[in-house]
């Protein structure tokens, strides 16, 4: 019942997976599943509520875009998960770790029971019997649970490198071999429970780390979906034919209706219209275009039908360039070395050297090789990286959960580490600092009757300004007037008759500095309704709070200088205007080279490369798919207040991680001399190991109250 496929489905089905972060309740599950299952061609849809994903088995004919559209129609915002195999691999890794964890836990507990009686004084035949039973349980369990470490250690050694798993694998193997030898010769000390406990704690750390990685769901690209699936192509003899984006070639002529998205880059052949290029430039106001001007794939034709001659299609469009830019920009992030790995690089050689020196030291001091070996094994066990292995993952999982409750999703495994290092913040304007919903500024200039007419007219159009005006008026509780013969004239506005007077909501005759419409009724003078981007709530407080945290801000926007000025002034930020995606990337790289760790906050497709290139990045939940995927963290809701909260939590997390490291080091400083001196019996080792791990876990749990 849990499988995504219906049993007995004979037809070969394709599987697609979407992330749907918006589902919050039990009702959403059935709404999505029922809605999708009701569609023809969908075999089965199954929601995974924990990972906020839906997997759909469907006929291969149904494209992912159609399915995405279907989910959108149900009222949810989906993101296609391109690489299903990678997601499945991660689930498999997770399961292998959990199995190994269960086996080592089971074995450790049973062996521990036997060991307790040995420590409490059992000797002679009883001790020998218990050692043998322990060996019978421990050896298969170590072989099974140790596989993740052996594999990783082996592959590191084969490539002439060393990693954290090498000392672990060597330590566990030597401990098990020594204990077996002790068992056979009837010796006093067997360290089976230590070896198993070591594996158990380390696997717990690994499993938490894998859980974290599974949550972040990387490798999602939905760039292609931003461009139109195809276009109506006009042949030389006038016949028209629908062609997919991939089949478009330069020289073809596309016919574009108003409201249609461009499938390829091109030059306008005939017609005038306005283009919404916000996807590429982030500029919110529509740009007028006429014959001979360039237009780009992914932009939206708003006003009137136009014909466009294709100049670049498929992989050659500016949109595809952004995709490639993002790929290269993201590479620096994958080179980031996480703090745990940095610790491991120091740790391995030190531990090996210590154990080896102990062995040599005791040999010189005249102890037999047997005793020297036993003591150096104790050193290996006592320096076990349990606390180190738990220090980072426990803190991060706890912090991630705490942040999720505050509406901040951590999307990259090293995001918190990088966020804690940020010392500068760069904002995009449109959609990030502002809500990207232009709001009418001077509605109070209209009397009640004019408002009713304006609402009636605005309702008939789907132009962005008209819908914004409609929302604002409806929020004021205005009722629409009765209007006759309402019609929308492309590129001009909406026209109708009210009480036998011509009325219209149209482009103003005089040039305006901000987007605006003119309300005209009969012979009365025009009333110009101006629109302005409204700042997100908490923007000013956020900028101050960030500055206080030591992150001075600036604006980097694709918008024009005039559009940015009011926002920059209100927030007292410096700004760089008219930045194209590659400019943004270059600006961030410049800052990075200057030694700044930049936190980029942006939302649009045009911010994608910048979000990928920045040291760490955040996007609002309203961001485009590309923006959300490229960002390391996503915050939900309109308010910008989560930004400083995230920075504070990230810094606290790293402070806790460093404390954990310090605790682990203090513990080693105290315990290692004892081990070297030969005072560490299996009992002492077991107690010390559990104690240090518990302290680290307890310390990390303090993050639960993160704010």
């Amino acid at each position: 019942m849990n499988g995504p496929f219906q049993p007995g489905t004979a037809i070969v089905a394709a599987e697609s997976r979407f992330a749907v972060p918006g589902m919050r309740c039990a009702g959403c599950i059935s709404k999505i599943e029922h809605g999708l299952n009701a569609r023809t061609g969908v075999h089965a849809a199954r929601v995974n509520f924990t990972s906020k994903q839906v997997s759909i088995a469907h006929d291969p004919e149904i494209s992912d875009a159609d399915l995405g559209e279907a989910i959108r129609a149900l009222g949810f915002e989906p993101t296609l998960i391109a690489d299903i195999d990678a997601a499945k691999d991660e689930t498999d890794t997770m399961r292998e770790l959990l199995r190994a964890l269960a086996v080592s836990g089971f074995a450790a507990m049973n062996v521990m029971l036997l060991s307790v009686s040995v420590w409490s004084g059992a000797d002679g035949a009883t001790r020998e019997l218990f050692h043998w039973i322990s060996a019978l349980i421990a050896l298969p369990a170590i072989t099974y649970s140790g596989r993740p470490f052996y594999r990783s250690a082996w592959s590191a050694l084969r490539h002439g490198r060393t990693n954290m798993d090498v000392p672990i694998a060597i330590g566990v193997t030597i401990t098990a071999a020594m204990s077996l030898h002790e068992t056979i010769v009837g010796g006093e000390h067997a360290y089976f429970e230590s070896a198993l406990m070591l594996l158990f704690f380390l696997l717990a750390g690994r499993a938490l780390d894998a859980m974290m990685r599974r949550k972040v769901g990387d490798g999602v690209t939905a760039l292609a979906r931003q461009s139109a699936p195809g276009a109506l192509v006009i042949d030389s003899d006038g016949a028209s034919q629908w062609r997919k984006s991939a089949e478009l070639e330069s020289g073809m002529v596309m016919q574009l209706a108003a409201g249609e998205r461009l499938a390829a880059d091109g030059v306008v052949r005939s017609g005038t219209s306005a283009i919404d290029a916000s996807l590429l430039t982030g500029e919110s106001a529509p740009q007028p275009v006429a014959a001979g001007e360039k237009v780009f794939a992914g932009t939206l034709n708003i006003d009137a039908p136009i014909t466009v001659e294709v100049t670049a299609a498929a992989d050659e469009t500016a949109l595809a360039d952004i995709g490639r830019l993002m790929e290269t920009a993201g590479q620096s992030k994958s080179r980031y070395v996480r703090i745990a790995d940095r610790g491991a690089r120091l740790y391995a050689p030190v531990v090996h050297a210590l154990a080896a020196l102990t062995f040599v030291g005791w040999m010189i001091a005249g102890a037999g090789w047997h005793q020297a070996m036993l003591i150096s094994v104790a050193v290996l066990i006592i320096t076990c990286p349990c606390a180190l292995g738990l220090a980072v993952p426990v803190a991060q999982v706890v912090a991630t959960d705490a942040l999720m409750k505050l509406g901040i999703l951590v999307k990259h495994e090293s995001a918190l580490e990088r966020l804690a290092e940020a010392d500068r913040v760069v904002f995009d304007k449109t959609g990030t600092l502002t809500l990207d919903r232009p709001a009418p500024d001077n509605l109070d200039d209209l009397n009640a009757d004019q408002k009713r007419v304006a609402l009636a007219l605005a309702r008939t159009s789907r132009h962005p300004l008209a819908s914004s005006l409609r929302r604002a008026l409806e929020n004021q509780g205005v009722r629409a007037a009765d209007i006759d013969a309402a019609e929308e004239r492309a590129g001009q506005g909406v026209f109708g008759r009210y009480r036998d007077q011509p009325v219209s909501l149209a482009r103003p005759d005089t040039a305006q500095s901000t987007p605006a419409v003119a309300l005209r009724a009969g012979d009365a003078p025009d009333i110009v309704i101006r629109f302005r981007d409204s700042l997100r709530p908490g923007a000013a407080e956020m900028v101050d709070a960030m500055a206080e945290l030591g992150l001075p801000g600036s604006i980097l926007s694709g918008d024009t200088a005039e559009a940015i000025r009011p926002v920059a002034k209100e927030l007292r930020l410096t700004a760089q205007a008219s930045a194209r995606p590659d400019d943004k990337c270059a600006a961030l790289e410049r800052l990075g080279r200057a030694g700044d760790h930049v936190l980029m906050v942006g939302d649009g497709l045009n911010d994608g490369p910048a979000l990928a290139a920045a040291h760490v990045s955040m996007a609002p939940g309203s961001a485009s798919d590309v923006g959300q995927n490229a960002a390391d963290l996503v915050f939900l809701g309109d308010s910008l207040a989560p930004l400083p909260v995230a920075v504070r939590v990230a810094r606290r997390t790293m402070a806790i991680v460093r404390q954990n490291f310090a605790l682990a080091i203090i513990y080693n400083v105290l315990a290692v001399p004892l081990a070297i001196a030969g005072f560490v019996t299996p009992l002492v080792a077991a107690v010390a190991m559990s104690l240090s791990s518990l302290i680290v876990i307890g310390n990390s749990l303090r993050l639960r109250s993160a704010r």
Partner: protein
Amino acid sequence: MTGLAILIPVAIGLGLAGLAAFFWALSDDQFDDPDGAAARILTDEDDEA
């Protein structure tokens, strides 16, 4: 000592049974969607695919 001959196998056997149950649950996707399972009991439908 005879007690041990019974008790130890029993103890280990019980542990193994728990381990087997966990392995089964894991391979049966029981831990795939814990939050979803909690939410699904609230919806009343029997035509589950």
